[in-house]
């Protein structure tokens, strides 16, 4: 227990000392992601647009189930579920659970606190999410879609997601560094998470047991919280079961992260 607390404090200290570099490295990570593409930043918008378009086609044209939800356009309902999914999907299968391979030179060429790699990687993905949500808000304003005061809780939603997924990355990255099998396994989880977490359906449709299980699903919480802001006009702590369960799994993942980090962070440079 003492080890976990010490590791946690050490980690907070490292992140505080390197805060400026964290910001710069997050920007560099963004540059790197879109490097080599002639269209560069446009891809930031093309990928979400294509996905939204395809899903919208499936639901609206193919299945004819694109009725407005809570008097809000179906397209908006879908977008505010899929945009956070892009972030979470990146954290699950797109490198977030395997940051040390992506930044191996920071692990075994330079002395750099390993936990900060997770922080700036998550931050860089978070910047994209914040960008797409701002884009959504602007589109709503242009199309005169009703927005409410509940949008002011967005920064809190971002912060809570940022915390959970940073810890997620700190937890799994050392294991992925040690075994490629493990990173593949986590990558495989990406698709099930997408289809089971209510990104594209309303969780209320699930039977009671299923809904309780979803209380403990961080991906489901991310989508629901985002929809509370835009669609259902609710405060996120209003549905207190979900909110408390999310805080609970934040604590759980913190403990797991500290355990894995304390046990493995000295071994990672040896095996990478």
């Amino acid at each position, binding site marked *: 227990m003492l*080890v976990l607390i*010490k*590791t946690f404090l*050490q980690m907070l200290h490292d992140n505080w000392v390197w805060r*400026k*570099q964290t910001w*710069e*490295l997050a920007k*560099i990570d963004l*540059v*790197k992601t879109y*490097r*080599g593409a002639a269209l560069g930043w446009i891809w930031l918008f093309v990928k979400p647009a294509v996905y939204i378009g395809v899903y919208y086609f499936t639901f609206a044209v193919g299945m004819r189930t694109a009725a407005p939800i809570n008097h809000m356009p179906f397209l908006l309902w879908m977008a505010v579920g899929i945009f956070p999914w892009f972030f979470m999907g990146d954290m699950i299968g797109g490198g977030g659970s395997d940051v040390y391979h992506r*930044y191996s*030179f*920071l*692990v*075994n*060429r*330079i*002395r*750099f606190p390993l936990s900060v790699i997770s922080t700036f990687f998550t931050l860089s993905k978070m910047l994209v999410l914040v960008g797409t949500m701002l884009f959504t808000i602007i589109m709503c304003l242009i199309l005169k879609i009703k927005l409410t005061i509940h949008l002011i809780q967005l920064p809190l939603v971002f912060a809570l997601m940022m915390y959970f997924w940073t810890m997620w990355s700190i937890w799994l990255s050392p*294991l992925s560094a*040690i*075994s*490629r*099998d*493990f990173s593949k396994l986590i990558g495989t989880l990406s698709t099930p998470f997408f289809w089971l977490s209510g990104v594209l359906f309303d969780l209320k449709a699930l039977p009671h047991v299923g809904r309780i299980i979803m209380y403990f699903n961080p991906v489901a919480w991310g989508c629901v919280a985002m929809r509370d802001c835009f669609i259902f006009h609710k405060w996120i702590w209003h549905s207190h079961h979900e909110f408390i369960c999310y805080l609970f799994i934040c604590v759980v993942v913190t403990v797991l992260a500290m355990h894995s980090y*304390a*046990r*493995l*962070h*000295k*071994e990672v*440079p*040896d*095996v990478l």
Partner: protein
Amino acid sequence: MSSRPKTGAKLSVKARAMRAATTENERVSWAGEGEAKVIRDNDKNNPIAVRFSNVYKTYYLYKNDKQRLLGTFTNKIDHKVINATDNLSFTINRGDSLALLGLNGAGKSTALKMITGVCYPTRGTIEVHGRISALLELSAGFDGNLTGRENLEMRCQLWGFTRDETEALIPQMHEFSELGDYMEQPIRTYSSGMKARLGFAFASSINPDILVIDEALSVGDKRFRKKCEERVKDIMAKDNLTVLFVTHSPEQALQFCTRGIVLQHGSSVFEGDIEGACQYYDEH
């Protein structure tokens, strides 16, 4: 804060390692126990730059990655224990230029990595006083997908320079590296010589207290090597720089080192002036 096995299971691993040590090779001593301590500060006035006291670095070799993953959960997985650094002790005084000589596998790079702080000793005490700039295995920590300039900017960031300082330094590094237009190309397109040139330009320009060079000069041509040697001599005279040079060719070491340590199987077998070290190295 330890990656050592848990107390209960430690004994069984220890027992196995002891058995292996006595039957296979008596020189391998168990290093998984005891305190590992790293003291690191930026005190560049300390007369000691680097000190190793009875340092061990143990690697656990598993058959494959799957076994290694299992090995992190349980200690029942079979593995080999190898001491890359085996009871190594030496002291580098401030202002020294010291060569680490040794054949491949003698533990030079492991020792350097522990000095720079990218990996940790299993047992023993390491003291490092002053800021280190290192070129490990040709790369000063560069990202292959970023251009030379972006990499330099990032490294300056990480070193702690402000934007103005960075902007003043990069043209100097650019000039020294003689990369020309390649500066704007991604590092993955560089040859090893180009990487080493850029790395050396960075590592020697940021005003470190300790400069670590690992094999970097062995890929450059003669003229560039000469230029590097002059640069090192220059900053050594000026700033009381401590230099650690790793090589397996004694000719280079003779150029600008005054002291030498010969490593063999992870421990130091000779420590003294550079001529003596080179002679010892050639004879053994």
